[in-house]
């Protein structure tokens, strides 16, 4: 029977190493699998710069376009909110920055903890709204598969368990912290096998589309 201290040391140690290893190997494999296939050579004459088009598209697709906003306002807006909220909570909370500093050697200023606290709440509420939309909207329900729900759960768990651990609601704090770390390690391990890969592949797909258009001299 492990004590709570031993459990936390194991979670912060070997378990984290395994999770990171699986995450990095998984992402590397999935990206290289595609990249190594290469693209078909475009035999037409270049009318513009592929690279410029590609880079431009990577940047510009981060902003909403009017048509999509009109047709899928809910998805667009909630998408922005929870993505930004998720990253702010992850990257600008002081104890998290310590973790990144430990692993990567770099550090950056943190935001005040009450701001992070509020952001976490907004993120959780938005993610719940997103799930409700997915369940109640006919089209969304029709398109949704098991993986969509799984990925939603894996994403919201770290935010919720982190919030609970910070505010210490429920079981003993060491267990709450342990649950939070487990949820993160679960997220990392399952990540490369799911649509969460979009976090990395989005750059590739935006670039490809932009490059194709740029090569032909049109705006993407």
């Amino acid at each position: 029977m492990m004590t709570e201290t031993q459990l936390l040391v194991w979670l912060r140690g070997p378990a984290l190493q395994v999770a990171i290893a699986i995450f990095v190997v998984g992402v590397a494999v999935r990206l290289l699998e595609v990249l190594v296939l290469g693209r078909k050579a475009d035999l037409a004459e270049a009318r513009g710069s592929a690279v410029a088009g590609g880079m431009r598209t990577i940047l510009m697709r981060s902003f909403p376009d009017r048509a999509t906003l009109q047709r899928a306002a809910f998805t667009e807006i909630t998408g922005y909110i929870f993505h930004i909220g998720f990253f702010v909570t992850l990257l600008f909370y002081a104890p998290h920055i310590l973790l990144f500093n430990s692993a990567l050697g770099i550090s950056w200023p943190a935001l005040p903890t009450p701001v992070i606290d509020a952001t976490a709440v907004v993120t959780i509420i938005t993610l719940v709204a997103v799930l409700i939309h997915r369940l109640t909207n006919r089209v969304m329900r029709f398109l949704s598969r098991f993986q969509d729900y799984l990925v939603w759960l894996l994403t919201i768990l770290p935010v919720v368990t982190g919030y609970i651990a910070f505010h210490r609601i429920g079981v003993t704090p060491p267990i709450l912290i342990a649950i939070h770390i487990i949820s993160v390690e679960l997220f990392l391990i399952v990540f490369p096998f799911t649509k969460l890969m979009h976090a990395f592949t989005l750059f590739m797909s935006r670039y490809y589309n932009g490059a194709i258009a740029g090569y032909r001299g049109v705006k993407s």
Partner: protein
Amino acid sequence: MSKDNTLGEILRKQGVSRRGFLKFCAATASLMALPPGMAPVIAQALEKARRPSVIWLSFQECTGCTESLTRSYSPTVEGLIFDAISLDYHHTLMAASGTAAEAAREAAMEQSYGNYILVVDGSIPTRNAGFSTIAGVSNRDMLLDTARGAAAIVAVGTCAAFGGIPHANPNPTGAVSVSDLIKDKPIINVSGCPPIPVVITGVLAHFLTFGAIPDLDSHGRPVAFYGKSIHDRCYRRPFYDRGLFAESFDDEGAKSGWCLYKLGCKGPTTYNACATTKWNEGTSFPIESGHPCLGCSEPDFWDGGGFYKAISTPTEDIGRTAVYAIGGGAAAGLALGAINRAKRNKAEKEHEQVTIDDLEKGD
């Protein structure tokens, strides 16, 4: 002093006025972390209480727990409680030694069989009985023998409660805690390295007053003192909540008394009364003096990932893991990519057609 006198009679004989006795009860209530309104209840109970016999066994320990307890010896509340109990055996404190001391222990056991309180500090080595002996008797044998007639056992200090520093990696002596060896007696774990002295005497006072063991948590520690974490009672908590942390031991944040989370404070995962009861009669406690909490009342705190590593940091070298993983992943990715290329080229050559099944794969 006769064991048959009640505590009230003993105090009167010592010349303590009733007023003095009431002052003693008020201070004892505070010491036991009970509300002040309980003082009259304590007064009533103590008046009628009889002096329990206490046998104190010291095993693999540094004597810090005994030191912590005997810091102030003159008639303080702690001192009085010690007078109120009959400390029949304590091989560090008692004048006798060797066979005379052991005879005293056996006599006390026989006289109060079934009723004496056994206090233990220090862990018990199990890898070799000879690692720690008293008068030629191994710790393990002495514990098992003395525990037989005990009404209850108080394991004082993290060593006795959880194994403590001898139990830390690689545990060369096979050190174990009291509760690892004794399974059939009530055990109260008063952990801490050392425990706060008033917590030790508070537990004894509880026996005197109520004749029963206090409510215990899942680690066998009295909830009255170990029910809240340091973090939940720390006066620096507002700084944590606002995200104001000391980055090093001598920066402006440290000088302003900001939260010590980044310096490795284990307050969030540690349960003890340090933040309210404090040390040295309420003078201060480690965090107030500028040092992060070590978590000394928790099991395995020595192996808890480093005293100066924040709780949110990894305990292994993650950077190195990531580098190896990138290398391995790249190799695997290139290999799989090459296989994919070969498959694609073959499919092109053989003019394979894409079917609906291919498209629905991975759904």
